[in-house]
């Protein structure tokens, strides 16, 4: 982990500007076995220091790939020069963002490193198990991926802190082929926040879930194409989490709100059925530590939960310090940067639809002709709230009972229209945290939700 060498540099912060100095190390470990072949064996670290200086509403930013006292001096000087350049070439003459107090935010969990051999051995053990147990697969992949961020942050007028966020996952991909010769694939991510040993000291606990994945693949082997059209569906928790992040979350990030997103004119208005509430959690969600806890952001704002939708009413946006001032609210810690060379942007943390009171069995039983959509490979949405999720596992629902599996397809809708069709919400929440959100920079995010019964457009033949 980084040693704090930056505290004394606060003396270099100039008067009349806002300055943030951030030292950061990103670490990654990666191992991949494709059909028994070790095709990836990589360890990497990037570390450096950046400074961001705000003068009269414009920002200068500079970073250097070196974690040293001299590098800190250089980036403060260069960021100041850049701010002055913009202030002279494109002046904004805006006041400095409001300060919400000083303090020190304590360090979270430690980042612990493990030998590459242990990672390779764990992946090999899983791969051998799959090869031996499921010889009829056409292909398989076992991939370990670990990324961590370690940040030392000093600010001129906000909180300081040493923030750590390690996470690691093993992805298992299983491949087969349908009777019509169509290649099919399913995958599952295991792991979460923490280091290798927090999740993979032993890997045999994963075998039960790998077996369930294999059984679903066998169902998919007999799968059919979905019938395209506007259907009643039960969205699995993975899908409702994706909905919370992609279709609603991005439209309520303040920079996109100012860019004219559909949410810009809907604050305090009805955007969903009464059953729908949504929160971007900081570090604690539903009584437990959130999947990827955030205690302080990269502008030195202490992280708090952001209420987005309450009983169907749009209640708020997510902010950095500048946008919070623009809307006259308090920032809640959403400004984060991915690498030492990245400026902080407004990002989600752990965004979720809140659970309801329905049971999944009742929800499925209530559908005459529709689909139960379980898992997604990716999702996108834009300013209008129009979203798309790739579906890689799902089942038909006929007369209240699960039917045949379906082959890969896509669902789409407009978030604030679709959310008004939600008429049942299950009583449990499924979280996922293995992905990255892309918005100029990548960013690890958590997303979660219960099962939702709603209407949605499904693609197919």
């Amino acid at each position, binding site marked *: 982990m980084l040693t704090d060498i930056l505290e004394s540099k606060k003396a270099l912060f100039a008067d009349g500007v806002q300055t943030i100095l951030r030292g950061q190390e990103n670490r990654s470990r990666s191992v991949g076995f*494709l*059909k028994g*072949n*070790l*095709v990836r*064996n*990589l*360890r*990497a*670290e*990037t*570390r*450096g220091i950046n400074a961001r200086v705000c003068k009269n509403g*414009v*920002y*200068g*930013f*500079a*970073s250097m*790939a070196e974690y040293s006292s001299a590098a800190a001096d250089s980036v403060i000087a*260069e*960021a100041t020069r*850049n*701010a002055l350049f*913009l202030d002279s*070439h*494109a002046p904004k003459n805006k006041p400095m963002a409001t300060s919400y107090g000083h303090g020190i935010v304590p360090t979270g969990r430690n980042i612990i490193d493990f030998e*590459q*051999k242990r990672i*390779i051995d764990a992946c090999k053990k899983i791969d051998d198990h799959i090869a031996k147990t499921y010889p009829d697969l*056409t*292909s398989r992949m076992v991939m370990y991926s670990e990324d961590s961020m370690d940040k030392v942050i000093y600010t001129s007028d906000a909180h300081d802190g040493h923030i750590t966020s390690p996470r690691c996952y093993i992805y298992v991909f299983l*491949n087969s082929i349908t009777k019509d010769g*169509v*290649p*099919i694939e399913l995958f599952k991510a295991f792991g979460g926040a923490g280091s290798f040993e927090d999740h993979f000291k032993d890997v045999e606990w994963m075998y039960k879930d790998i077996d369930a994945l294999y059984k679903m693949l066998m169902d998919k082997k007999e799968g059919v194409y979905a019938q*395209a059209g*506007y259907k009643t569906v039960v969205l699995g928790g993975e899908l409702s989490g994706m909905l919370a992040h992609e279709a609603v979350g991005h439209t309520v990030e303040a920079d996109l709100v*100012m*860019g*004219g997103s*559909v949410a810009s004119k809907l604050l305090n208005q009805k955007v969903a059925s009464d059953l729908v509430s949504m929160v971007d959690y900081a570090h604690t969600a539903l009584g437990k530590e959130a999947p990827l806890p955030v205690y302080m952001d990269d502008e030195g704002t202490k992280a708090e939960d952001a209420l987005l939708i309450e009983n169907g009413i749009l209640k708020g946006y997510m902010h950095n310090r500048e946008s919070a001032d623009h809307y006259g609210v308090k920032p809640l810690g959403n400004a984060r940067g991915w690498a030492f*060379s990245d400026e902080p942007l407004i990002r989600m943390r752990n965004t979720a639809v809140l659970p309801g009171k329905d049971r999944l069995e009742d929800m499925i039983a209530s559908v005459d002709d529709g689909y139960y959509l379980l898992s997604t490979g*990716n999702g*996108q949405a*834009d*300013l*209008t709230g*129009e979203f798309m*999720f*790739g*579906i890689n596992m799902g089942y038909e629902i006929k007369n209240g009972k699960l039917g045949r599996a379906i082959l*890969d397809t*896509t669902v*789409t809708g*407009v978030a604030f229209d679709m959310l008004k069709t939600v008429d049942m919400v299950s009583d449990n929440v499924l979280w996922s945290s293995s992905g990255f959100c892309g918005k100029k920079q990548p960013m690890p995010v958590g997303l979660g939700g219960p099962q939702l019964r709603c209407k949605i*457009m499904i*693609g*197919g*033949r």
Partner: protein
Amino acid sequence: MKEIRKTAEYIQNLLNESKVDKYAFALHEKETREFNADLGDFSLFRTVFGNNAAVTVYNDNKMGTKAGNDFSDEALKTTVDEAVLSAKSAVEDPAYDIAEKQPSEVFHYGCYEPDIEKFFSRVEELLSDIKAQYPKVKILNVFASHTKDHALYMNSNGTDFEDFGGSYSVSIEFSGNDGEKTTGLDYADVTTANLDKPFIDLGSFRVHLESAQNQLNLTSFEGKFEGTVLFTPDCFAQFVAYTLNNYVSSSVILDGTSLWLDKIGQQVADPRITISMNSSDPRIVEGETYTADGYRTQDVDIIKDGVLKNHLIGLYLANKTGRPVTKNTSSDIVIAPGNDSYADIVASIDRGLLVGGFSGGQPGTNGEFSGVAKNSYYIENGQIKGAVSETMINGNLGDMLKNVKAISKEVVCDGSMVIPYVAVNGIVISSK
């Protein structure tokens, strides 16, 4: 900071002392200067001084890689030590290897040193041009950067490649907005080696900006039909990337799931389709000069006149399968133009869509895709009737290349790809 050659010598000495069988390493020393504008106004000026060292070690038929950005002696020693240790931890596979010695070369391309004042003026001009000429376009972000990259690649077979490259790139995110309505987001970007022309006249900026305004005029149709889709060059590039990934990439050849596994020399596409990776094409600003395995990059046809010519085979995969190495690991895609004008192609479509973007799940290994047609327009009886929303397209990547209706003679060149408009029959188009 140590000169990059000195850094290379230091790493080479460490690797030679470690007595490993083979090694390769790549060093990059980069400087990026970037202007950001939010909502049409400059907001941030960013300078990034970046390094990267990636060391790969091959020993006893094992391979391991360590990468880092700290060029201090102590950190570089750790990088080498960990690469050696990673290789030691790996499983044996005699297929791991590096390319045989290639003649040493020094490459210069693009624009190595930026003119920051002129660059700022060109970006300022772009913002002003958009405001004046496309009043119903709302700019969310502009990211305008110049990056210079001094790179070295060396391996234990004696190959020594050195690059001095640099370019300006501009990326804009925007939507149509008339005060009442907002369209979906659209994106456009361009890479250029010089500042001779206004940015708005480069790549497909004007096409995208015009489209954003037109997206405010919605039309609709009901149900679903099988029709013709005319893909814009930017959107067709996305489908080409899917196709290469699904049918010719190293992973699907290695695991045997490619449907084109044994189709080299066979017709897989319409005879008018030629897809190449032409890194030496002068329209590509920063074409690849050497591959990840250490080969001098060559121009390669993937599909020539509809016939599959090459898979994307790296050295590891070549050793594994006995297939020849493809000496290009770039995405410098060049697609041959056709004979029809864009206007004639639109006029020839009975019923279909002009599709400017695709938001869909990654197509499965069978090539089936389904997703939302973004920035798209309904075409009926040869005329563009209006923009559509909540419209999905479904098809199959392999079938698409066989069902080509027409290819435009106009191509879009954004500095990294050269691609025409392509019309395809037999796509299922559905609306709410």
